[in-house]
């Protein structure tokens, strides 16, 4: 009998402790920032390998514009852009990983849509790449435009993406019957298309350009000129932690704004003596911008010095490897693109 009581009390105690943990965590507003600083690294969800966006080399170093967003956050909150733990996720797993708390930032070429933003406990913090869905076909097929698609065409793609929905809208509106072949992993899609299972491969155009470099003979494939959808890609955080949301948003904005003011990783320190107050604010020489997040004043300087501005990141990851040398809409608004971020002040 005594034993039973003892077991019972220990169980009650266990439950009480667990409850205490959850309620305490709920009370604090920036739980994520606290946890990150305690752990010493930023937990970042990325793709399973998309050159230019998030891709790991043979020794496990991640690079890409999506990766750089997480590195920027790490530089801001931990002082070291390398203190990031990357979790490769499939399109299917990504949101669950974020909402269940396995990762704190999802930076994985994810399209910002109303239902994702509103429905499933996510908050999109901005856009780091303006993209649109396109089609890839074999060059020798003679197809040069989506207008040449015929009934019975088979299209390889990923499951769990907006691609699947856009594809349906596209083929339906044109009255073309098609066979969707949807795989879980991008590598499997590419392998299937490359082997001839499908006549066309459809996903975001940046993805097509990146995956093309992985194919047996990249020159045998072309991306058709048409864009069938808007795909603003950007980092995502969990709903319910406004401070963390702001940190991620402004880490990204800092990179873009730094490019606008010509601040680069190499000249950032010398910019402290600039005459322009906007530049001085960005490199932490004026104002108290970091305090609003509970960070020190050099947070943005560290981002620029360690990760670089958006232009540097784009050049390093996307333009130089020859994925998409032309920045297109991902050019600053001052140079004919649509990259425009609110002022940091």
């Amino acid at each position: 009998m005594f034993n039973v009581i003892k077991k019972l009390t220990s169980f009650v105690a266990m439950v009480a402790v667990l409850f205490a943990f959850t309620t305490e965590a709920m009370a604090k507003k920036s739980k994520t920032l606290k946890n990150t600083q305690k752990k010493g690294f930023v937990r970042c969800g990325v793709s399973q390998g998309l050159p230019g966006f998030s891709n790991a080399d043979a020794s496990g170093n991640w690079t890409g514009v999506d990766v750089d967003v997480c590195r920027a956050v790490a530089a801001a909150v931990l002082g070291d852009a390398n203190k990031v733990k990357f979790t490769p996720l499939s399109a299917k797993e990504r949101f669950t990983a974020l909402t269940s708390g396995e990762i704190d930032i999802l930076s994985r070429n994810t399209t910002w849509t109303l239902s994702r933003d509103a429905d499933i406990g996510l908050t999109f913090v901005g856009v780091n790449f303006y993209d649109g869905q396109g089609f890839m076909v074999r060059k020798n097929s003679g197809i040069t435009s989506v207008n040449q698609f015929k009934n019975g065409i088979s299209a390889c793609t990923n499951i769990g993406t907006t691609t699947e929905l856009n594809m349906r809208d596209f083929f339906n509106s044109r009255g073309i019957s098609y066979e969707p072949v949807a795989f879980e992993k991008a590598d499997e899609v590419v392998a299937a298309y490359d082997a001839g299972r499908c006549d066309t491969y459809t996903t975001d155009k940046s993805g097509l350009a990146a995956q093309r470099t992985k194919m047996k003979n990249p020159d045998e494939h072309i991306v058709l000129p048409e864009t069938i959808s808007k795909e603003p890609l950007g980092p995502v955080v969990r709903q319910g932690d406004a401070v963390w949301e702001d940190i991620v948003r402004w880490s990204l904005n800092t990179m873009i704004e730094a490019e606008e003011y010509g601040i680069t990783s190499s000249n950032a320190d010398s910019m402290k003596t600039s005459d322009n107050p906007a530049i001085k604010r960005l490199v932490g020489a004026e104002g108290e911008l970091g305090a609003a997040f509970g960070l020190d004043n050099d947070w943005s300087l560290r981002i620029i010095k360690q990760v670089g501005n958006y232009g540097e990141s784009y050049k390093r990851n996307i333009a130089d490897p020859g994925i998409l040398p032309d920045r297109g809409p991902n050019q600053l608004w001052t140079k004919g693109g649509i990259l425009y971020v609110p002022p940091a002040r």
Partner: protein
Amino acid sequence: MNNKIKKILPQIITVLFVLGIFGFFTFNAQINMDNRGIDFGFGFLTQESSFDVQFSLIEYSGSHSYARAYLVGLLNTLLVSFISIIFCTILGVIFGVARLSPNYLIRNSAAWYVEFFRNIPLLLQIFFWYYAALRALPVPEKAGPWFGVTYMTIKGYYIPSFIWTNLDVFLYSILAVIISIIIISTYAKKLQENEGKQTPVFFISLGLIFILPTLTFFIGGVSLDFEIPVLKQLSKTSYVFDGGIGLPPELIALVLALSLYTSTFVAECVRAGIQGIGKGQKEAAASVGLTPNQILKLVVMPQALRIIIPPTTNQYLNLTKNSSLAAAIAYPDLVLVFAGTALMQTGKAIEIVSITMLTYLSISLAIAAIMNWYNKKIEIKEK
């Protein structure tokens, strides 16, 4: 009184403990979901799904509901499981019996087959059949016909589809055949029990199966047309077959992998069952003058089945659950369509995963119930 409490108390505590754990997790999930602004509910099932599925047994398009998409996935899972269960049983029985063959070559080939296929992880076998074996197939324009009118290509196996007129008459005739075979075999059994006369039931049934449905073509107004798949050009270099029925390569690869893998386990069950019957049984049967065929049919098999059925049921259950690996090669089964695409598009993880789990549980329980019923039927009736 004291004794009674001692007996019941631990049980009550266990129940409370289990309920407590469930309550704790439900409560926690509720709070976490509230915090992140996620609603719980099954209302999404009636919403328009707006995604298409490659292969479906029922009419489906993106304008149907998520509930319909669920049904599409479920039917695809049942289809692949059903076909694979039939193939794995046939192969399993053949190889199980072959392992006991007195012929050295047959016995050892069967042993190699079993050891080879059961010792390679199933997922690898699926990938092998899909990427290596099926990818070695020709593109549509280079595929030569098999059996005249079917085409095996990298885009699928194309077979003619049947176009029936008065199909119902034909189906009724088959129903009539089944009923008459049942009546004849019951009568034949009675005749044998009462008068010792043997009736060639097998040949009578065979005759019926051929004659009656054939007759409907002549007097029932039944006719059958084939729609043969035709090659169609999509672009300068790509072709596709149009018309007929196209079985996707994903389905073929999955059936191959599942039935080959599971058949090895069934083969071992069959071998164990036959070996479990004492030598004395066969000798006793032979001594009363039964032929070898009769010994197998009347003495060995009825007893062996009792040993074979329960472990084979487990293999069927495993096969059904293993069919969820389909997601790896784009076969639109329940996991890919519902727990994959639908989950992603709605974000209703808890709801969809619990529905999927319950579905697999129900399929497994249903298979187990059927097999248990069959097992009850053939087990020794103690008098």
